[in-house]
């Protein structure tokens, strides 16, 4: 599903991502590890089409990465930071709206939205506005927005951020279910618990070459 072939990113003489190769099949999780500044986020940005590589290539589903391409948009969901939220919509509104724009069938949209909210334990926060959420709740809310849409590939940058151990476990369970559903997942994390729970392959960027 994902083929990363000696992809690299450099700005002038500064290497942000050394040449890196990896592949991820459908139903597989690639955990990306590395110290701060090793290039984890840069790699994920390349996969999500936010950043152009200066060397090598990436193909997703056999196609090059193109953020504006409709097929790519449908195929790849990513969480590289908190997404922009609408201050005038509640948590439930946000998730329902995302699902309603992706799924034509009303029942499927509703089922998906409510399912994601339940999975992530957000049912008690449905009527809150984004500014009324704690930082950990915002992280779960951001994950809900990404998971409320269809995807074949899921790219996540440190989904454990701001979460307590129990919530990290919840996120691990949710992602494991998506993997069982056939999604190819690339996740950068510093959480050993998340890595042990999910990793089919591990890419250590500190040692990438």
């Amino acid at each position, binding site marked *: 599903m994902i083929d990363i072939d000696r992809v690299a990113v450099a700005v002038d003489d500064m290497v942000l991502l050394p040449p890196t190769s990896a592949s991820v099949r459908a139903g597989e999780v690639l955990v990306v590890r590395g110290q701060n500044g090793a290039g984890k986020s840069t790699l994920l940005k390349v996969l*999500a089409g*936010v950043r152009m590589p200066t060397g090598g290539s990436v193909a997703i589903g056999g196609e090059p990465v193109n*953020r504006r391409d*409709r097929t790519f*948009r*449908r195929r*790849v*969901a*990513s*969480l*590289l930071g908190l*997404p*922009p*939220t*609408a*201050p*005038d*919509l*509640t948590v439930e*509104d946000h998730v*329902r*709206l*995302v*699902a*309603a*724009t*992706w*799924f034509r*069938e*009303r029942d499927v*949209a*509703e089922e998906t939205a409510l399912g994601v909210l339940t999975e992530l334990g957000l049912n008690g926060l449905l*009527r*809150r*506005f984004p*500014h009324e959420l704690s930082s950990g709740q915002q992280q779960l809310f951001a994950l809900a*927005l990404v998971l409320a*849409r269809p995807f074949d590939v899921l790219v996540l940058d440190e989904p454990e951020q701001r979460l307590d151990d129990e919530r990290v476990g919840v996120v691990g369970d949710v992602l494991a279910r998506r993997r069982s559903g056939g999604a190819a997942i690339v996740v950068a994390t510093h959480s050993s618990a998340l890595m042990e729970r999910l990793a089919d392959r591990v890419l250590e960027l500190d040692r990438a070459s």
Partner: protein
Amino acid sequence: MNPRLRAATAIWRGRQQRAAGDRAFIAYSLVLFALIVGAPVLRAAWLAVTARTTAVAMTEPIAAVTAAVVVLAVWATALMVGRNRGPAVAAPFLAHVLTSSDLPGRTTFGRQTLVGVATLAAVGGGAATFLGTALVFVGLVPVGSAIGFAVRGLLIGVLTGLCWLLGQATPRAAAVLAAVLVVGAAVLAFLGTNAAPSAWAWATPTVDVPGIVVLGAVAVVGVVVMPWLLDSVRGATITAQSAQWDVAIAHAVSLDFAAASGSYQAVPTAGRRLRAVRDGALPVVMVLVRDAVGAVRTPARLVGGVLTITAAGLALVLAAQSATAAPLLGAVAAALVYVGAGASTRGIQHVAQVSRDQPLYGFSDGSLLLLHSIFPVAFSVVITLASTVVVGTVVAASPVAAPIWGALVLPTVVVSARVSNALRGPSPVFLMTPAPSAVGDPMPLLRILWALDAPLLAVLAGSSTGAGSLPALTAVAVVIALFLLVRWARRG
């Protein structure tokens, strides 16, 4: 001044002390600005108001009614502004130090509040003096009348300052009082020239001693209770407002006016149980309902938007009645629509952010932008049109055909300018590059024009509409459309 307050402010000012050269340069810049920008604008305004037709229109009964409505609206606005940014604010840390001391509010913030009130009094008195002198110059009112009007203008300014403080000291009561004033303005506008007590805010054939006495009495009472109002402003309110103002100024200095106004955007307070998303609905209906429910969730902002756009309709009707002042009134109408439409454009702002980020929704960015434009356009057009028709037929009893097309087209153009503004993104690099020339570096001016192009183009569109110039309006609309398309293509 209290010795402890003097010591604290001296320390604060000491760390920000400007060199004599800096102070001289600021003074030089201000003088140049006054000469290059202020003087021509003042002269143009003087020529406009001393034109015979304009001056005669200014002595029509409808002018007095309009002035009274405007003054009531200004007081209501001052009350609402005070709720978010009152006269008693300071640099965040200084505000924290002062509010956590045992000094009362009248001591810590009395002086700057007095300066604020005095400034507003000077503005009110100055504007009334300017207009009154113009009417005397044309020979339409006696000197005594102009003096009386100037005094009333000054007192109106004082009361505006007191409303500002009242908004900060008693936010809830201020909201109620603002609502009462708005209703009063609406009643006055509806009664029109039949309302006898409508002349107090405008130049009258006489000095209008009763008007001065009433305004003066209210102002004296207000000034007497001012210390108690200052004492009752909560420390938490002052520190919060100070921090918010500091952030807004920081954004404004970096020419990010959208972020500056965004820092004062109301957070939703109501309607969290309303269902904003209709699963399975047509995309048009889905987004329209979402935007409408979103707007309802900030009710004060929504009401403010409706009233502001309603006032734009009034300005369009007045523009149709006065050929000389038509471009100015059209510009005012556009500015009011630009501000009022803000209550309905949260969806557009959200799409502008989403379009620069990872794909979130299943619709394309272009479709989303178009869908989210429907509600603000409909909101602005319907209110402007309704206001124009009602004011034109019931109040002004004028033929409404002339402003109708303006009420249809202007809000659409203005909302397009708002969309362009939302898509602005970071400043182009070439604007940040100095370009020295024989007449100086034009880049700072270009940067300001770039940052303010949307409201400026909206005002130009309004001026063209007021003047009834379809070619000019079309030209402005084309420029707005080009800006919008370029920004859309260059989004992140």
